[in-house]
């Protein structure tokens, strides 16, 4: 009977662990060499803990059962035993040294950011991510795309509820990508479990990390450091693609950016600006200033019926272009293009009954942010 248990118990536990893997109960193995190493370390230390636990709790529950006062157990007299104590100090030390060696190797590997093929700058912002492909002139913001109706329970929740963005970070597989990370306001933390990358983004400072993805796919993560009210709503989506597919994507992005840049010089109609401004407002502004511009004072002032904003166009543009230091209002000078800024300014001045009729031209914005 006992031998049956000896066989059955570990089998059940291991089967359970495999099941856990399939059901999302355990750490993902991930799609990089490092994530696999980490998973290996995780499982090793887990089984070490299970073994020690079985031993310690085994002795403990045996004692509790065997030496019951109610069954007339008489207490023994011993209260120290030096060699046993030395032994149970020495054995854990050996186990720990055994763990420290592979952990050190993995850590050294994680810190080796040299010889990267592509540099991507990751910038945390309340509450979105910005990705800049260094030297490629491609940069964009990545906002959560889950509509607030779903969060409020007014619409059915999609499969990737809270883990979907308007613009994913697209990366090539099989290439070493170096991440440079910083923040515009508070500390955020960029984390994608499948890539085993978690790194704080710290305002004014730069952090490094790297990844080399082995399999194409869509990998999702979230901000892991409390960064204010919408901390739970700044997901990360990484789209890992074949290398040639990545090159095509990169070329398309560059072309689109050029197209947009050409739009700066022409005259825009009010309707056109409003249409362009609404999605920008929803993606960038609505998380703080709310869908109808009603704001959430005192942290986030209302935009609708804001007298100062309506009276003073220059002030309005200045707030958006240059931001307000020490608040969640960043400078959009270099993260939105002049068309987007002009459109969103026009939108906020005319939506929700503002009706100033101002059609702010991209060219006038471009003047204010000349290089």
């Amino acid at each position, binding site marked *: 009977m006992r031998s049956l248990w000896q066989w059955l118990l570990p089998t059940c536990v291991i089967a359970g662990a495999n099941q856990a893997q399939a059901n999302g109960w355990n750490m993902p193995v991930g799609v990089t060499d490092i994530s696999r190493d980490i998973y290996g370390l995780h499982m090793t230390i887990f089984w070490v803990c299970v073994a020690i636990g079985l031993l310690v709790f085994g002795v403990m529950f045996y004692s509790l059962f065997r030496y019951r006062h109610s069954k007339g157990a008489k207490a023994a007299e011993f209260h*120290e035993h*030096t060699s046993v*104590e*030395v032994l149970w*100090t020495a054995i854990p030390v050996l186990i720990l040294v055994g763990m420290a060696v592979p952990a*050190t190797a993995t850590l*050294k590997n994680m810190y080796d950011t040299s010889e990267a093929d592509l540099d991507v700058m990751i910038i945390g912002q309340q509450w979105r991510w910005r990705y800049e492909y260094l030297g490629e002139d491609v940069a964009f913001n990545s906002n959560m795309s889950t509509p607030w109706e779903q969060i409020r329970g007014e619409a059915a929740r999609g499969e990737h509820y809270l883990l979907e963005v308007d613009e994913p970070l697209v990366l090539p597989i099989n290439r070493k990508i170096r991440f440079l990370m910083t923040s515009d306001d508070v500390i955020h933390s960029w984390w994608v479990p499948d890539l085993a990358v978690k790194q704080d983004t710290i305002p004014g400072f730069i952090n490094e990390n790297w990844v080399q993805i082995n399999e194409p796919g869509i990998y999702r993560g979230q901000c892991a450091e409390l960064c204010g009210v919408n901390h739970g709503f700044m997901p990360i989506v990484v789209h890992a693609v074949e290398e040639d597919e990545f090159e095509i994507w990169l070329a398309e992005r560059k072309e689109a950016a050029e197209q947009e840049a050409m739009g700066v010089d022409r005259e825009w109609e009010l309707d056109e600006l409003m249409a362009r401004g609404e999605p920008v407002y929803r993606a960038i502004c609505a998380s703080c200033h709310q869908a109808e511009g009603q704001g959430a004072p005192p942290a986030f002032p209302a935009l609708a019926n804001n007298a100062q904003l309506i009276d003073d166009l220059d002030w309005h543009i200045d707030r958006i272009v240059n931001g307000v230091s020490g608040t969640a209002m960043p400078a959009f000078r270099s993260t939105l293009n002049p068309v987007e800024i002009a459109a969103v300014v026009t939108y906020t001045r005319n939506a929700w009954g503002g009706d100033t009729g101002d059609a702010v031209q991209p060219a006038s914005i471009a003047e204010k942010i000349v290089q």
Partner: protein
Amino acid sequence: MWSIIQSVLAALIGVQKDRKRQQDFASEKPLGFIVAAILVTLIFVLILILVANIAAG
């Protein structure tokens, strides 16, 4: 002196014979033990720093 260091090292891993302990606590002056403990801790930290630096390459 060696006896004090021995006791402090024993304390570091948390193992000490009762007889030795009685002997330690027979002396009423804790200063020697405190100084030794601080020194041993410092040496311990330095060794750890050294090991970490060697491991980091």
